[in-house]
Structures are given as C-alpha cells and as structure tokens.
C-alpha cells in the first residue's frame, strides 16, 4: 500500500510529510491498511452499485444530447480535523456576511463606491449586475442565501477560498448521498469515531427558505424551481425538494396573477407559492424582464418579488458578487463592512483590467492560471505551465481583446488525497466545496463536497470534466481545538 510522491510534494490531506497518518486520519487509514486493496475494491464496487440503483446521476452534455451518468465516487474518504474545520466555518460565515452586505449596498446606497473602496466601473461593466434589482430590500438584507465556496489547499497547508459561488451552486445533494454510501462502505470506522453528520442540511435549508416568506404568511408553501430533467443538476433539485417536502416545479407550473402573487397549477386549480428556491439562472427567471425567449421562467416573477409577495433564493442579482474579478476585493469588503480581518485568505489575484497587473500577467503567463470572469464549471480556464504555445498566443489575444473578463492567479499546488486508482492507492488532487446558508442566522455544512481530479496530475475536479468525488469527514478527536 504505497503512495507515489511527486518530486515537489503537494500537501497530503491524510498523511504528513513523513508519511505518518495525520491524527484525524489514523483510524480510517488503519482500516484501509487492514482491508487491503482487494477488499477495498469490493467496497468500491458495492458503493458504485449503490449509486447506480439509487439513481444518483448527473447529466453531461455532448453533441447537444444529455447523457445521464452515475455519480463518480471514490470510496476513500477525505478527512479534516474538527478544530481546523471550526476555523474554516467561522471564516466562511464572515465572508458571506460581507458579501451579502456588499450586494445589498451596490443595489441600494453604494456606500462602498462612494467611499472609494470599490471602483464604480466594475459594477457598470459587470454582466451579473442587474439594474432591475436596484432599490430592492430583501429580508434580513440577504441576497446570497445559499452559496458554495470552493476551497483549495496549497503545498504549505494553507486553505484558500478559490471562488464564491453565489448564483445556483450545486453539489450539496452529493454530500448527503456520498455519506449514505460511505456509511455502508466503512461501518467499522463510523462506529468507532465521531464523524460529524451531514444530514441536517436540508432541514436548515427548509428553515431558511421558510424564513423568507412574505410578512404574515405562517405556514409558507415552498417550491424548488428547476429548469427540468435536462439540467445537469436535476437529480439534486428533485433530491432537495423531496427532502424538504417542497414542491418541485418547472416554470410552466407557475403563474403570476394580477394580485402579484405566484401560483402553481394544480389539479384543483391555482394554489399560492410563498417562497421559491430557484435553480435557474437570473436571465431566465422572468421573460418579461430578462431574456424574452426564456421558456424556463415565469412571466411576472420579478414583479411579484419586488412587491414582496414571494421570497426568492438566491435573490435575483446576487451573482454580482460572484465574479472572478469582484473576488479580488472580498478581503477589502470584509474590512470595510465588518471592521474585521479576513479569517480565510483569498488566492492572490491579478486583474487584467489594470495595466500594471495585466503586464505582469502577460509576462508570466506560464506561471499563472487564467480564468474568464464569468464562466463556471471549469470552462475557459487555462493553466499556463500546461498550455501549448498556440494556446498561450490565443490567450494573449483574448486578454488584450477583453481585459475586464480575465483574472490570473498563481498556479497553486493543490493538495492531494489517497484515491483508489486501479489496483493501487495513489494521490490525486482535491478541492472542497462547503455550502453556506445565510439568513437571519448562518449555517455551514459539516465538511462539504470533496471533488477529486481522477486523471494522474490533473487539477480539474469538475464532474463534467472527469472529476470524481469523496465523502468528507469532519473528525472530532475531542481535544485541543485551538492548537491544531
């Protein structure tokens, strides 16, 4: 059971530099050693069969047709010690507080601009800024109720926030499904250790959504709005609705009437909807206001929301802070709105719209990761030291043509976790997406979705591009939280 190590060792999540298991990983690594690869394989196969019959799938698009694939799962969990996790949790809560104040501010008073902390032109140029949302005051001043920040760990062990996903982040259902599968795969470890449960999420989400109901509504009717079966995250939409006892609706199921309320079409006529957890993009929400071609949305929905007749999570326009350029200002936002120092560091980010930073980027392309400002799912990313000359040349052209759309970051040496690959256990790069709920109070999932890049050396963890996933264990060793 040996793990090969690259010349310059990335941080291993489960063992220290000398190969000694980290305290929180000791138990599970011990079990894995005892089981041997063959038994591990058997458990992996059982897990895969579970996933298939449970119908845990995601959809991949290729040549215009969607293919339903079983969710790729690696049976070896990724372990984080509870003390470290508690610090990360505090950092994420703090970050989302600042981000929400920022969103509320830019759609209302724009104090941060007036005070010279944030440049006005960034808002005017942002493809995610919605003028239609100006002057709206959602409950609690919160816009991004559900977010899924991507965290990565560099070779020195520092955990960074890589991006804030504030629009319609997905993956939380797989956190719960992975746990269900992992419990069957490693019952002996769960029996012996304190591993934080993850199941509470849907209940917390339900409470958060209920709190967004219009004033005076006591037993709100909650709907999850999905683009439909062809969306890659449809499985998750159904899963969440099912867990919360909410109604899973498509745009065609909803109608806004003259009283500005939203209704569902039922076998007994129209029934009111008080809160919508929407899993469709802003621009498709309401054809009367945004994309008039949208078949996914509901005409009049923005009107109902602005009139306070329906709660929408995440609020339309929340994506303005989910932008790889705006990202660079998050530490400043934390200081500005909260008067605190950031608890979780940002990855250093170069903004190509500024001449000096762009010059640095163009001079150091091979040492940087280039990211388009407004893409998700890992699309459009270029890793400098892996690109061909032709790709780099094209990149220079893209940056010069639209500098506002590009940022660059140093190439982090993503941490690895032991992963079952064929007949061996090999290190593979991982990231982590915890989910943060923000309303009157905050909640962070215990751990989150660990995504793993399965091809050797790959840094791309997106499931749409060959990524797998692992269960994430927050292990409480019952001691010294502060001196991890």
């Amino acid at each position: 059971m040996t793990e090969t190590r690259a010349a310059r060792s990335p941080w291993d999540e489960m063992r220290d530099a000398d190969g000694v298991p980290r305290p929180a990983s000791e138990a599970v690594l011990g079990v894995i050693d005892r089981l041997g690869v063959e038994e591990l394989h058997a458990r992996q196969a059982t897990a895969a069969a579970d996933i298939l019959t449970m119908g845990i799938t995601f959809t991949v698009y290729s040549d215009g047709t969607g293919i339903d694939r079983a969710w790729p799962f690696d049976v070896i969990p990724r372990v984080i010690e509870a003390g470290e996790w508690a610090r990360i949790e505090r950092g994420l809560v703090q970050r989302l507080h600042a981000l929400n104040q920022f969103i509320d501010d830019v759609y209302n008073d724009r104090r941060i601009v007036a005070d010279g902390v944030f440049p006005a032109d960034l808002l005017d140029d942002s493809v995610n800024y919605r003028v239609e949302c100006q002057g709206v005051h959602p409950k609690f001043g919160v816009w991004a109720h559900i977010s899924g920040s991507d965290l990565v760990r560099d070779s020195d062990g520092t955990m960074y926030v890589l991006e804030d996903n504030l629009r319609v982040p997905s993956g939380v259902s797989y956190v719960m499904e992975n746990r269900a599968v992992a419990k069957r795969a490693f019952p002996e470890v769960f029996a012996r250790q304190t591993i934080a449960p993850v199941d509470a999420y849907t209940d917390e989400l339900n409470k958060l959504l209920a709190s967004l109901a219009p004033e005076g509504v006591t037993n709100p009717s909650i709907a999850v709005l999905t683009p439909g079966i062809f969306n890659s995250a449809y499985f998750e939409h159904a899963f969440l609705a099912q867990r919360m006892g909410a109604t899973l609706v498509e745009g065609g199921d909803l109608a806004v009437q003259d009283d500005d309320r939203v209704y569902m079409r039922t076998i007994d006529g129209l029934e009111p909807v008080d809160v919508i957890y929407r899993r469709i993009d802003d621009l498709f929400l309401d054809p009367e206001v945004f994309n008039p071609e949208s078949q996914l949305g509901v005409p009049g929905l923005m009107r109902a929301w602005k009139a306070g007749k329906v709660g929408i999570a995440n609020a339309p326009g929340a994506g303005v802070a989910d932008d790889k350029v705006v990202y660079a200002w998050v530490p400043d936002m934390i200081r500005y709105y909260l008067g605190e120092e950031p608890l979780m560091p940002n990855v250093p980010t170069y903004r190509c719209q500024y001449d000096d930073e762009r010059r640095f980027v163009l001079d150091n392309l091979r040492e940087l990761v280039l990211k388009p400002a407004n893409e998700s799912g890992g699309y459009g990313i270029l890793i400098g030291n892996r690109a061909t000359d032709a790709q780099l040349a094209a990149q220079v052209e893209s940056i010069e043509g639209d500098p506002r759309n590009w940022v660059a970051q140093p190439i982090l040496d993503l941490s690895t976790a032991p992963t079952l690959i064929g007949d061996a256990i090999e290190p593979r790069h991982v990231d982590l997406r915890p989910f943060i709920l923000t309303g009157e109070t905050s909640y962070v999932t215990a751990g989150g979705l660990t995504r793993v890049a399965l091809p050797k050396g790959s840094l791309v963890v997106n499931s749409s591009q060959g990524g797998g996933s692992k269960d994430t264990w927050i292990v409480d060793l019952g001691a010294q939280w502060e001196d991890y």
Partner: protein
Amino acid sequence: MLLSRVADRLYWAARYIERAEDTARLVRAHGELMADLPAHVTTRWEPLVTVVGSDAQFERSLDGHRSQSRSQSQSRSQSQSQSQSQSQSQSHGGGSTQLPADPRLGEGTEMAVASFLVSDRSNANSVISCVIAARENLRTTRDTVPRDGWRTLNDLYLYVSTEADRGRDRRVRERFLNRVIADSRKLDGVLATAMTHDEAYVMWRLGRALERANMTTRVLGVRAAEVLSAPHAVIGSNGGGVVIDDGADELDGAHGEIQWMGVLRSVQGLQMYSRAVRGPIEGPSVVRFLLEHDRFPRAVRALLREIRRALAELPDPGVPLDAVDHVEAVLRESASSSTDGAALDDAMDSLQVAIATLDRRITDRYLQVGP
C-alpha cells in the same frame, strides 16, 4: 396539493408500467400455451401483436428481417390466410413432411413476435420501451414518490436495459418476463404501503386501473374472439374436448380448454376463475368472468369500480365520472356478445373507444397544464 404536471407524469408512469407488466404476462402465457399444445400444432403468435395494438409497426419491423427470406415475406394477414389454407391441405396430406413451411417457421415467428413485444426499442409498446417510459415519467416526480418506489423502478430499468436482448431463448425470456411482472407488483406494493394515499397516489391508481381495463378488453377482443370464432370452439360440439379429430380444427377445437386457460393466464385469472366458476373452463363463462366480475381485479367491471372510487377522491370529478357511466353502459351492452367471436371483437372495440373517452376526460380535467 398536486401539480397538474406531476399528476400527468404519475398517471402515465402507472399506465406504462402496467402496460409493461400486462404485455409481459401476455407473452409469458402464450409461451406456456405453446408448451401445452402438441408439437405438431402450430400456434400463431401474431395475434399478440394485435392485442397490444402495434400491427402496423410490426409489419415495418418484419420487412427489415424478412427481406432475405421469401417464405416469410408475407404480411401478417396474408400469412394468416396462407397458414389456414395450408392447414387444410395438410389435413389431407397428413404427414409432417408435408408441412407447408419450414418446421422452424413457428419458432421463427415466435422469435420475431416475442422480440418485437419484449425487447424492441423501436416498438413504443414493447416491454422495454414501456419500462423506459415509466421510468422517465417517474424520474420527474421523484419528490412525490417514496424513494424505494423510484429505486424499484430504476432497478428494473437497469435490468431490462442490459438483459432485454438476451431474451431470445425461451427460458431466459421467461425469467426476464417474471422479473418485469414481479417488479411491477413490487412497485405497487411499495407505493401502497409507503406512500401517503393522497391525490398523487390516486393518480397512480387511476393510471393502473385504466390501463389494466384496457388490456383486458384487448385480450378478449383478439385472443378470446379468435378462440370463439374457431369452428369447434364450443366445447360441447366435439365432446368436451375429448375427441380429437384429425385436421386443422384440432388446434381450436380439441385444445379449446387449453386455449381458454391461456386467455385466463394472460390476465392472471385462471385460479380465480376456477374458484369463482367451479366448473369446466368454457368460453362464454370466461368472457363473462373477465367482463362482469365485480371483485376480480382484472375484470372490467371491478376495474370500473376502482376507477370510480379513485375519482371520488379527486376534486370535482363530475365529468370523468360521467365518462365512467358511459363505459359501464357499453359494458352492459357487450353482455350478449360472449358466445360469438365477431360480436365480441366489435363489443370490445366499442369498450375501448369508451375507455379512450374516459382517458380524455381525465386528461382534460386534471392533467392539462393550461395557461
């Protein structure tokens, strides 16, 4: 509270899985019937295609296969009349060497029909297509249906997707059909015991019952009418099936009882029929049992009762209930047709038209996602 769209998908999920189950049972019963008949008697498989209403499509699917083989190039109706005339000439020739066609013809037809009904994805009514369609419908109502229910259907889907093409061999096919039937029953069991019996569940029951009623009329209209029409179908006319005369008629005459058992088995009714009737298996009484019995769950009258009960739990069922009244009226009129094949065929056609109208009323009232 039930969304019209979800109601629609539950209703169709139920109809499709019921159709898969019923078709599986039909093919299984026919295979059993084949085994009971003497080896030299060729039983025709083609009528099964008519039962599920896919004749035209079957023609098209055969055209592809038959292009190499001249002896099999006739359309269904042609080969039907041909096999009758051949049987007549055969009755004079006597010996098996005189069999008009390759002895494997029966087997070839069986293979073609069985594959068409079971594993042909281009046939929208095949078992596999129905399982896929049922799953697609249930997949989009996952928030309404208990998880075990979805899992049962998804399991069956995975099974049929990998196994359907192996079902050419009769024994393998039987195992396959058994699985489809058992899983469809299991799904009903899961929903009955784990799902709140709310409007969503009522839509499921409604879809099941309507499809089942439809299938019973189809089996009667095609298979039963065929056996009734056979020259010696009335059991008494050839001495209760004891005397076997030498010739074409032996299939339909002497083996009448076995044929009627086959009809009953296609709707899982043999044992309950015997219990209810406590007498010989006679055509007219089989027909009456499958139409009129008000407690046998695949008899049309009992199914209308179930549909009525289900509708009564839905809001404002007036118009669909009127349509049920109409189906019952047509059912009463069909009572006189239990001895005459052609009349039975016609009566079942009328019954199917009335059931189709009921389906439209249900759709208009509950399932249409209007503006």
